[in-house]
């Protein structure tokens, strides 16, 4: 995979942050403009996005379009006695009203299990569940008509405590237990000299995409429908829609528009499906833009989790045994909760060597808002808990928290509690040492006249005398790609014509940088500067969901293979003519040169007006499901990260400001330094939201304050200084380019590191996320 993968960083390229080893020096000639792998190529759509002219789904328009509105349940749990749409249908300007009775195909859908109705028919299982939808010639008319649909409910007692879900009446014919994994690893009788216990609660983080869900459905003359929306998994959404519409998949096309923020699987089928149904029903294009409230109610959230831990260690601090119980609140429908649970159970002990582990994991149904795939799912919740345990253990043993972690650090060749051997690079100790040894930022008390941003903000209530500084460590891990036997595959096509290359791949650019990476790969392999990435739709072969770092790996790998096939087609006639093998020819700057520099021609000449196409697939090695004791080689690859958080806490008010996050991350290889930095900074900011403010509150199953005043995201003043201390570039030999996914692991690790730092500053246990001010009020000095 590394053959010919010369590092093309030329003059002006930003070198990767400290860590070196940006790639073995290869035969790359000097490049006039930096392009290819390893340089900070800017995203092609960045200027349009910065200027506000980039078209998102909410900006789309079609002649004669109608506007849709969805009626959502005001109750978390209720029996539907009757639905009367006659008043709504009779309103002037209303073109169609649809309910469960109008779904021509499958009445239910789901990512793993089809347990979620398109429209609730007899039972409402969560606040905001879709019940009916209206198409009208004006958005306000549609909303008013939706409000005019008379639904008679028999309100039922909601099940909102996941611990009570086991014994509660089944909320669904499938029962309330979505999955149970009893992981058994080692000797249950093993015991350590030192035991610490802890109970941890993780709140409900919302993906809170800045662009709310929106879509446009356009009926096709063949009786099918095209849905324009910011899907991050277009083929799965297409298949799901086709099944519900009772159409063959070929007659439904999902066209991906610009994605205004995604952290996991974006878009709410509860909106796309009504949209498509209404377009089919009316024969007109139908558009819907969700309000912020609908967005909060409709899409999936991070699983609120309850974790109970018992860590056993010997007197030197070596872990002996970990016992844990993990309970995921899945909300009303299964969605991808089974996958989240697998990650939570498998990584319950963290990146540490644990000889004996006994973990019980459950994902249960409740009437709370739906949970699903959100970046770092499962792994984030357990990270906050096992790192809390490591802090407790360090305190009990009188050890430095970093030292305790180092004594137990996982390395390549060690076993996970699932019995899987870690075969990829796992430089956990190296990462931890890097952040530990990085100099600490200055203290306000050393420079009281300085321009400090205290907790509480500029000119705020913060007072230097009440501020305590805390330093804490978090080490986290995630898996990359789908796990447990998921068929991870992506298909890409590369075309070259007249010195311009085009990539056609259904991998969605969600902001993770795939389209930039695809351009860099083709620049690298074909030596042409101008590379276009085609817009994504489901007429292209599937590339799978944009999640779990998949596209860097599988779609990047597919693009590279396709580009290499094009390269071979391009060079073979020349090689034949020159009487040498294609390996002796290099392409750079649109010129093909032989190894000795004697023979030279341009790509355009070699093409001679021809178009060259190639399509290739990338499919990593298969995995297996976890068995009934939680054992199995379930993961393709792992990524690690260590963070040292420095926080200032106003111990009287309990307000927290994160001062600095020092990060060391295992990235395999830096493919685009600027994007790598941006992804880490974004992940940390999102993690700080989960650590300090982001929690979608409910009471009795009802979502409280579904808006950005009630749900507080971090602002630029809350975002800390991020110091990327080290990016460890130890190539993962099975991954294309040796690169690992970057985005998820900082999200996973940040809340644990912030909690550890607040613990150090206040002396309080801090076992609940987000950290409430009353939990961060310390004892006065």
């Amino acid at each position, binding site marked *: 995979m590394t053959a010919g993968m010369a590092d093309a960083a030329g003059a002006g390229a930003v070198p990767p942050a400290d860590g070196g080893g940006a790639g073995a020096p290869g035969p790359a000639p000097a490049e006039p403009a930096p392009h290819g792998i390893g340089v900070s190529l800017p995203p092609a759509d960045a200027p349009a996005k910065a200027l506000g002219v980039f078209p998102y789904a909410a900006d789309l328009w079609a002649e004669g379009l109608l506007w849709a509105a969805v009626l959502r349940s005001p109750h978390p749990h209720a029996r539907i006695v009757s639905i009367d749409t006659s008043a709504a249908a009779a309103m002037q300007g209303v073109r169609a009203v649809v309910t469960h009775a109008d779904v021509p195909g499958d009445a239910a859908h789901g990512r793993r299990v089809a347990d979620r109705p398109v429209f609730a028919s007899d039972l409402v299982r969560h606040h905001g569940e879709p019940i009916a939808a209206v198409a009208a010639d004006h958005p*306000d008319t549609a909303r008013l008509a939706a409000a005019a649909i008379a639904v008679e409910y028999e309100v039922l007692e909601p099940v909102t405590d996941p611990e009570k879900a086991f014994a509660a009446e089944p909320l669904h014919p499938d029962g309330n237990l979505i999955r149970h994994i009893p992981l058994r690893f080692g000797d249950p009788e093993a015991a350590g000299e030192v035991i610490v216990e802890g109970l941890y609660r993780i709140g409900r983080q919302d993906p809170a995409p800045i662009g709310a869900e929106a879509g446009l459905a356009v009926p096709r003359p063949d009786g099918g429908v095209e849905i324009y929306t910011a899907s991050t998994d277009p083929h799965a959404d297409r298949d799901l829609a086709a099944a519900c519409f009772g159409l063959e998949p070929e007659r439904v096309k999902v066209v991906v528009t610009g994605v205004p923020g995604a952290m996991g699987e974006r878009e709410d089928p509860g909106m796309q499906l009504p949209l498509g149904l209404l377009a089919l029903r009316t024969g007109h294009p139908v558009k819907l833009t969700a309000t912020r409230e609908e967005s909060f109610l409709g899409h999936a959230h991070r699983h609120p989790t309850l974790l109970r831990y018992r860590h056993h260690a010997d007197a030197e601090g070596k872990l002996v045994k970990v016992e844990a119980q993990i309970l995921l609140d899945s909300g009303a429908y299964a969605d991808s909760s089974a996958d989240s649970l697998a990650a939570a159970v498998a990584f319950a002990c963290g990146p540490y060597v644990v000889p004996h582990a006994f973990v019980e994991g459950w994902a249960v149904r409740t009437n709370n808002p739906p949970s699903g795939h959100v970046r770092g799912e499962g792994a984030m919740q357990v990270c906050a808990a096992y790192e809390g345990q490591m802090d407790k253990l360090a305190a009990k043993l009188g050890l430095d928290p970093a030292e305790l972690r180092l004594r137990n650090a996982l390395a390549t060749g060690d076993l996970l509690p699932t019995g899987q051997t870690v075969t990829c690079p796992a430089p956990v100790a190296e990462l931890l040492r890097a952040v530990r040894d990085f100099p600490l930022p200055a203290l306000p008390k050393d420079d009281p006249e300085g321009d400090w941003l205290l907790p509480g903000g500029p000119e705020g209530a913060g007072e230097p005398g009440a501020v305590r500084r805390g330093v804490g460590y978090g080490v986290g891990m995630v898996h990359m790609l789908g796990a447990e036997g998921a068929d991870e595959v992506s298909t890409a096509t590369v075309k070259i014509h007249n010195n311009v290359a085009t990539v056609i791949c259904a991998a969605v650019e969600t902001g993770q940088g795939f389209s930039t990476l695809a351009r860099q790969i083709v620049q690298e392999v074909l030596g042409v500067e101008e590379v276009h990435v085609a817009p994504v739709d489901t007429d292209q072969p599937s590339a799978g969901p944009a999640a779990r770092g998949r596209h860097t790996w599988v779609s990047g790998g597919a693009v590279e293979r396709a580009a290499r096939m094009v390269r071979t087609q391009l060079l073979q006639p020349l090689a034949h003519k020159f009487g040498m093998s294609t390996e002796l020819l290099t392409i750079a700057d649109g010129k093909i040169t032989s190894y000795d520099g004697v023979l030279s021609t341009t790509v355009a000449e070699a093409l001679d007006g021809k178009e060259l196409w190639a399509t290739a697939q990338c499919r990593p090695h298969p995995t297996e499901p976890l068995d009934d004791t939680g054992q199995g080689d379930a993961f393709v690859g792992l990524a690690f990260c260590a963070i040292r958080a420095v926080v200032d806490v106003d111990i009287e*008010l309990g307000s927290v400001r994160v001062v600095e996050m020092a990060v060391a991350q295992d990235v395999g290889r830096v493919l685009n330094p600027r994007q790598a930095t941006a992804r880490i900074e974004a992940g940390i900011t999102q993690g700080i939201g989960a650590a*300090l*403010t982001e929690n979608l509150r409910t009471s009795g199953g009802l979502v409280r304050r579904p808006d950005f005043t009630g749900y507080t995201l971090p602002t630029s*003043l809350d975002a800390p200084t991020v110091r990327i201390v080290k990016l460890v570039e130890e190539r993962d030999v099975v991954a294309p380019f040796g690169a690992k996914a970057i985005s998820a692991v900082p999200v996973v690790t940040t809340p644990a590191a912030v909690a550890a730092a607040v613990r150090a500053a206040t002396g309080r246990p801090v076992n609940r996320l987000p950290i409430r*001010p009353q939990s961060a009020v310390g004892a006065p000095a």
Partner: protein
Amino acid sequence: MTTHAPQTAHTVTLPGSLDEAVAALAAMPAAVPVAGGTDLMAAVNSGLLRPAALVGLGRISEIRGWQYQDGHALLGAGLTHARIGRPDFAALIPGLAAAARAAGPPQIRNAGTLGGNIVTSAPTGDTLPVLAALEATLVIAGPGGARREIPVSHLLAGVEMLRPGELIGYVRVPLLHAPQTFLKATGRTGPGRATASVAVVLNPARREVRCAVGAVAPMPLRPLEAERWVASLIDWDGERGLAPEACAAFGEYAAAACIPDPPQPADGTEPLTLPPAALHLRRTVAALARRALGRALA
């Protein structure tokens, strides 16, 4: 593309003076006055409010500035938070300037007005505790050039209401020539709604400390006993300093007054205590009040 409802034809009037605005409201009783729109338009966009007509107050230059009137400042209701936060205004009424600077992100401060903050009367309105501590008076413009004055606390408490067709024209605030502070606690470092806020205003001429606590009740609360007690401790003719313990005691006193203990059972059974969240709120108010007084006396 339009998102306006087809069935409602909007009329927007842009009067140039306060009396024209009052006349426009009298001519269209269904019309709603709009200044910065930071609260009103959120209600319109979420479908809670469908005004048949709007009277825009943005072009009334007489209420976008301030004037002086026998020891008082007559502040136009159309002053934006951004304008109030500027240094020239802060030199006059520092507490109000501090509250305006804390009131949300720049976009909101550029649009939101003093009059709007009063009319919305949100518990978390940042200027309200300062106005309560200043004992500000509202000058209400009515039909036919009529003017009447009501204390701001009367409007906030609902003792007196705006009558149909009336507008807040000005806010009369005393010029006290002494330190004033406003502090608020929020959930994040960036702009956010107050979980509690405290304004402290000194009036050396009458040897008064005035304090108002915002966001913990539907309207700002004045801990009058605590004010009087702490004012009696201050050496008004000297350095005006106070021992840290006295400031702390003032904070506790004010906080206990604003967030009182629940009534205790008379039969001597288990005493009732506040829930942890209310206790934390009380601690927060105590810390804010202590700091606000300390900074005012520093």
